[in-house]
């Protein structure tokens, strides 16, 4: 917010100058409003095409049918298989990223010597910079073959490998946000704990983590929405075949990979397949929106004021 509200410029400026100021402020307002326009455009485009889709397909079929065979002769429009794929890959990703990210955050914030911190943090930030399609390559040709040595029955396309890679991918997001939250906890709280004889680990577990809980939850929510929206890792390494299963050893498609698959097929504008990717996108959007609302409520519930 403006920090200089009380310090308005003096009124003795030329008329030309004043017009310039006015024009510039107008341009700046328009730029800032672009964020609102983009949101409106996203909602409009998704709703518009989805409504056309739901004129052909009943919402009941969309929600209850267990097959998604839009590319076949006999078409079924049930979102459930795609939801299952998204659910499984995201759940595996979170099972990797939440413990790993939390431990790294606690370590970096409460344990790590300054030198280790300065060295490891940039490395983790580099991990954020690796493109997702490269992570897809990693899942398909590095992680899955290694998993196959342990689990010989694992097919080349499966949800386990991509899920683990998604976890590795979102770990730095979670750790860096959670660490920021922990470092924002005032030093006096820690000093109080240490004065009472707490060890570092006890201080971290009983003082810092509870005090930073709302920020840590925000980090988790961001991680979940990244995992749900992740596209390329799954598109490359999970097989792109809609499959109504919760078994991570099987290949499957997610909401996002379905969109990619249809878009690769170059379908005519206005066809039902074209509209279906917007319906899938709408479901994805609603999921991330729901997650953000839940995150907001949780954050409010656990916010500590100090």
């Amino acid at each position, binding site marked *: 917010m403006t920090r200089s509200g009380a310090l308005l410029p003096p009124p003795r400026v030329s008329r030309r100058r004043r017009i310039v100021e006015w024009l510039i402020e107008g341009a700046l307002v328009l*730029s800032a409003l672009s*964020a609102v326009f983009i949101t409106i455009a*996203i909602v409009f485009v998704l709703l518009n095409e989805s409504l056309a889709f739901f004129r052909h397909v009943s919402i009941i079929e969309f929600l209850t049918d267990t097959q998604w065979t839009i590319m076949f002769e006999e078409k079924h429009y049930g979102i459930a298989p795609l939801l299952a794929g998204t659910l499984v890959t995201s759940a595996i990703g979170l099972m990797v990223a939440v413990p790993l990210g939390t431990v790294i955050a606690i370590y970096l914030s409460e344990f790590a010597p300054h030198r280790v911190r300065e060295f490891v943090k940039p490395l983790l930030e580099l991990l954020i*910079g690796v493109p997702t399609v*490269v992570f897809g390559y990693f899942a398909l040709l590095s992680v899955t073959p290694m998993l196959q040595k342990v689990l010989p029955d694992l097919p080349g396309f499966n949800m386990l490998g991509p899920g683990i890679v998604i976890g590795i991918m979102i770990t730095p997001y979670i750790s860096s946000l959670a660490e920021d939250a922990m470092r924002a906890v005032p030093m006096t709280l820690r000093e109080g704990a240490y004065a009472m004889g707490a060890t570092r*680990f006890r201080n971290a577990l009983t003082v810092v983590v509870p005090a930073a809980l709302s920020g840590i939850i925000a980090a988790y929510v961001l991680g979940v929405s990244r995992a749900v929206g992740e596209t390329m890792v799954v598109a490359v390494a999970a097989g792109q075949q809609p499959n109504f299963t919760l078994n991570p050893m099987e290949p499957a498609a997610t909401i996002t990979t379905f969109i990619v698959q249809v878009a690769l097929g170059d379908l005519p504008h206005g066809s039902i397949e074209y509209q279906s*990717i917007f319906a899938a996108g709408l479901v*994805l959007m609603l999921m991330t929106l729901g997650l953000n609302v839940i995150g907001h409520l949780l954050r409010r519930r656990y916010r500590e004021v100090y």
Partner: protein
Amino acid sequence: MAAELASSNRMEPQALRALIGRNKQSDKVFAIIGLLAMLVGVFALLWLLIGLAMDGGSRISWQFLTSFPSRHADKAGILSAWVGTTLVMLVTTFSAVPVGIAAGVYLEEYARRNWITDVIEINVTNLAGVPSIVYGLLALGLFVYGLGFGQSILSAGLTLGLLILPVVIVSTREAIRSVPVAMREAAYALGATRWQTVHDHVLPYSTGGILTGIILGLSRAIGETAPIITIGALTFIAFLPPAPITNEPPFISFEWLMAPFTVMPIQMFNWLSRPQAAFLNNAAAAGLILVLMTVSMNALAIWLRYRFRKKIKW
């Protein structure tokens, strides 16, 4: 903990010592677990890089950089891909950077505390969390068909511009916020208008932070695959877009904006979805170049941030 301490008052010294020992033990154990967890991350990064280098390192050559994609894996290259990436990034930069900086300046320096500002801020935060493929759908409906830009460099560049807009806005705001109020007061005291203050003082001081944000945003945009696939980019492009500089006046042509294109991550994905091992090696080589590009951009951003943080003393 309090209960435990209270009861420890009545403990035998030996038992108390054992309790303290156990607590100290858990400290050491966690320090090791934390170190291991970080090593997992670092190890994953190394494993990924070494894997790419081993599979694709030998494919990287002058021929690879200067050839078009081909049916024959050993003759294929990434010429059209890196030219496409460069041109798309040009459009992205020119669309996202001015708007992003302007929005950041408005929110920090001009905005009054009212509901419009609140709405804008909520929108910026939410846009940062929208999955990238949704931007692809927006672009498919809006740029490709709505505005009739087709599956062109312009559509792709604008799509990625929208995608990184929140990144640019947020980093601009952070950079501007770190400029002390005293700087603004000094300018106003000398009779500067609000824009003169921003343009001559606030923006120059926050250049480093803004630049860092722009580089991070572009490095994300370079690697984005899903939105570009969604707008229907072709994957087999064995020609270059029209040159931006021509022989005839006015010497500058913008025909390339409407040209079909491919970009690095799309080329990699295309090779990755073929079964032949030779193409997988090409994919690894393209991936290696892509990672080197994004990682060096991120490293540059981290270094810049570090340098500016160290250098500026108010």
